[in-house]
């Protein structure tokens, strides 16, 4: 039942974002000579200014964590089944808007790290076919990341995205209010419902208070984040376009899997540019994610759909492996760069395989799942890449082909069994 509260927790963090964001806005002055300075002034001179910025940053990361958990729990419980397809889609749009909030807010302090991370991040849109260069100019407000970029990111962060977010979240809440909470497929009979008010609402408030407690504790003890790359908001020095970009610059943790996937693609790929193919793959994956309510035909008929549960777990493992590699886990010690990359892949594969094995075991014994083809394919790819040393893409192709053969074979076997049963 705990999964039902994740949406509420996400909304709590969003409310915290709005409140602290408005407070930050009282001091923030966008501009070449003022953006960095105003944030510096706020955090060093304004009473509790440091706390507001710290809470805003922590809450942003916690909101994304709870949002991702909320999406995966919705997916695993198949809560997107009719008539709730639009609830899923509106939630999906909220997810994209939240990533937009993260990306646009990151640049606003106008410090060195944000400047270079945004330069690298915005550069990705250049790979969009035909309109890539134009899109880059629209995003940056010119050829390069300049103060004009900050102006438009600021406008997006405090006006465009909040308006869109409030609009979509209203719809999202309206759908939930009209349709109620979804029941798991396994619940054949609807249990006696809990009254939204006061029972559910008070539980929500209780959890929100617990989240607030966690939030202020983290904000006081770790005001610049936990010190993990991609989750660190120490102001550092001011952005300087003339300064050399420092090596090993990384995006925020929730974009790390994309960053790592881009790194795994060669510069040229079957006549296309590697980043273009990668971007296409990411778009396809995100599109599949968006239209899952329509793809999952068994769930639409209120039947268990183990393949889609397995798809969710495979996606989690896929993202975990890429994120760990993006963090360079295990890439330390002697050896050249290539040796370190191989060592990192091996260590990350080990961790993810252990996690995968635990997940499969729990699903097998606790939830009596019997369909693990996609999870198996994801784990096979990691094993081939991390232990055998096959390239990431080739390992992916091998795994997908094996998974496709397994699915086709199981389909034919089931058809034959059905025929025999019919006779």
């Amino acid at each position, binding site marked *: 039942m705990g999964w039902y509260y994740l949406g509420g927790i996400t909304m709590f963090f969003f409310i915290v974002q709005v409140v602290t964001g408005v407070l930050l806005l009282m001091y923030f002055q966008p501009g070449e000579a003022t953006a960095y300075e105003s944030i510096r002034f706020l*955090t*060093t*001179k304004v009473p509790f200014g*440091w*706390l507001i910025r*710290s809470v805003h940053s922590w809450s942003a990361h916690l909101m994304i964590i709870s949002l991702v958990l909320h999406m995966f729990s919705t997916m695993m419980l198949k809560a997107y089944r009719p008539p709730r397809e639009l609830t899923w889609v509106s939630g999906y749009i909220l997810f994209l808007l939240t990533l937009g909030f993260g990306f646009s807010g990151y640049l606003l302090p106008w410090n060195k790290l944000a400047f270079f991370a945004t330069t690298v991040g915005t550069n990705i849109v250049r790979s969009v076919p035909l309109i890539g260069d134009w899109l880059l100019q629209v995003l940056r407000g010119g050829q390069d990341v300049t103060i004009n970029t900050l102006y438009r990111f600021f406008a997006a962060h405090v006006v465009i995205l909040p308006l869109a977010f409030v609009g979509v979240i209203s719809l999202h809440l309206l759908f939930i209010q009209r349709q109620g909470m979804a029941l798991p497929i396994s619940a054949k009979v609807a249990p006696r419902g809990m009254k939204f008010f*006061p*029972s559910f609402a*008070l*539980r929500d*408030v*209780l959890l929100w*208070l*617990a989240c*607030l*407690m966690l939030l*202020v*504790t983290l904000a*006081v003890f770790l*005001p*610049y984040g936990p010190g993990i790359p991609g989750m660190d908001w120490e102001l550092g020095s001011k952005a300087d376009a003339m300064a050399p970009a420092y090596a090993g610059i990384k995006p925020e943790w929730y974009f790390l899997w994309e960053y790592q996937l881009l790194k795994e693609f060669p510069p040229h790929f079957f006549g296309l540019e590697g980043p273009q193919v990668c971007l296409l793959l990411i778009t396809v994956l995100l599109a599949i994610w968006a239209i899952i309510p329509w793809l999952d035909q068994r769930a639409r008929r209120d039947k268990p759909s183990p393949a889609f549960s397995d798809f969710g777990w495979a996606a989690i493992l896929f993202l975990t492996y890429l994120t760990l590699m993006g963090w360079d886990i295990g890439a330390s010690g002697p050896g050249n760069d290539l040796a370190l990359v191989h060592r990192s892949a091996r260590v990350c594969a080990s961790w993810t395989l252990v996690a995968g094995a635990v997940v499969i075991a729990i699903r097998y014994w606790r939830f009596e799942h019997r369909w693990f083809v996609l999870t198996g394919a994801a784990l096979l790819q990691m094993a081939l890449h991390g232990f055998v040393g096959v390239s990431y893409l080739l390992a992916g192709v091998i795994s997908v082909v094996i998974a496709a053969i397994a699915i086709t074979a199981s389909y034919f076997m089931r058809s034959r069994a059905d025929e025999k049963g019919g006779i």
Partner: protein
Amino acid sequence: MRTIPIIVGILLILAATFAAEQSSAGTSPELAAMLDAKDKDGKPIITQEQRTYFNGLNDNLKELLNQVVQKKVVTRPEHLGLLLALQLRPQKMELVLQNNCILCHSDSETQSSEDLFTLGSDSHHSPPSHMNLKEIVEDTHFRRGLSCAGCHGGDPTAAFGHAFVKEWPESGRQANREWIVQFCARCHSDPTFMHQFNPALPTDQLAKFKSSPHGLTLLEKHDSRAPQCISCHGVHGIRPAKDPQSKVYAQRVPETCGACHANATTMAGFTRADGSPLPTTQLAEYRTSVHGRALLERGDLGAPACNTCHGNHAASPPGVAGVSRSCSLCHSANASLFDGSKHKQAFDSHNWPECGKCHGDHAIAKTHDSMLSSAPGALCGDCHRQYAKDDPKCIPTADYFHQTITRMDEAQTRFGAISEKLAAKGLDVEPINNQLTDLTDNLKKSRTYVHSFSRDTFQQVALPGEEAIQRTDTLVDKAHEEYKYRQVGLAASIALIGFLILAIYLKLRQLEK
């Protein structure tokens, strides 16, 4: 129908002519044959690299090569290959191709091994350095058009011209090296002549050399072990002092001087003014010194080499009075403080070399604050107990310097670490860091002001340093209080939120009973 083959034939002839023109543009048949020559194994004698260099030559140089081949100055492809292997820039190549001395003396078929210029690329048959062709063409004189004939005489454009200049000793020139300084001075002591080439170059080298112990040994004692021009500058490969390959480039000076001064055999019999033998440990000591490490290991060209203190052409020991003057060229603040101090008179009365007495000479080590201590074994304490027993103020003053500087140094390290920790906790450390900058600045100045050996003068910079310590202390206390305030605030907030959680939980239980 016949016209088509005729047109095709004309086009073919034109194409062939054009191709032939292309392949032989600027190359005579003799030269082309040499370029294409093969050895007995059928391998090309002119390497691909040499061929590429030849192809890149301009028409003028190709014509000059044609001429030297036609005049039979260069007759063999191996000889041609040697010239191309130099890979010279056009200006230098032009000089080489117009210089019959080099062209003849680089032909191994006509020259004896003593008179042959070679490249020296073959480690088994490397020529003596003065016969290395690469060195000769890099010589600063050669670049300015002063080639073999400038010193040896003769006519470089004539087929044979071996008339030596009259200053050139026909015999005995290896045994007695005195003639060399006069020979170089023909040009280098003539301001009008030198002005044509390098107006900034001094022309007093000979006068300085004559006054130096090196010059006196060579010219008055007629001892040819003493160095002359070519000992330090080289013979045919003389380069400007700013060229890193020059023997007198700052980083190579210690090695050049050490060639004699670190050699016990060469230095045997040479003595100091007091009659004691000249040591040969200077180079080894210098290498370990703070100056030697800065110059030789860190590549800091501002660090002194031998000639910075001893001079170049007038190289001599600096003498007691000269030591402080040499040091003061760089350490001017320390020197001026010392000059105004009581120590100046005391050192003069003992005839001690000022800086050298405490810091040493060739083996100057990095200074340490413990030198100021009055404890046994420390520099100040030991010296004062021996030489200034009667002055009761000396030891306490040394102790005051030592304690103050040690306190500032310790505070600087401590506050630096505290500042980092506070910054990690999210506190504003800018004011602390500003004070730390003040403290660091005053610490540096205090270490310099020790050379005044006066408590009052020292305090001009030490007191602001001590004040910076106090201000930093106050700021650190404030930062700690601020952090405590945050923790207390957090505890209160958590207590309040906890109370609310408990209240809601109890209410829920009550509602759902």
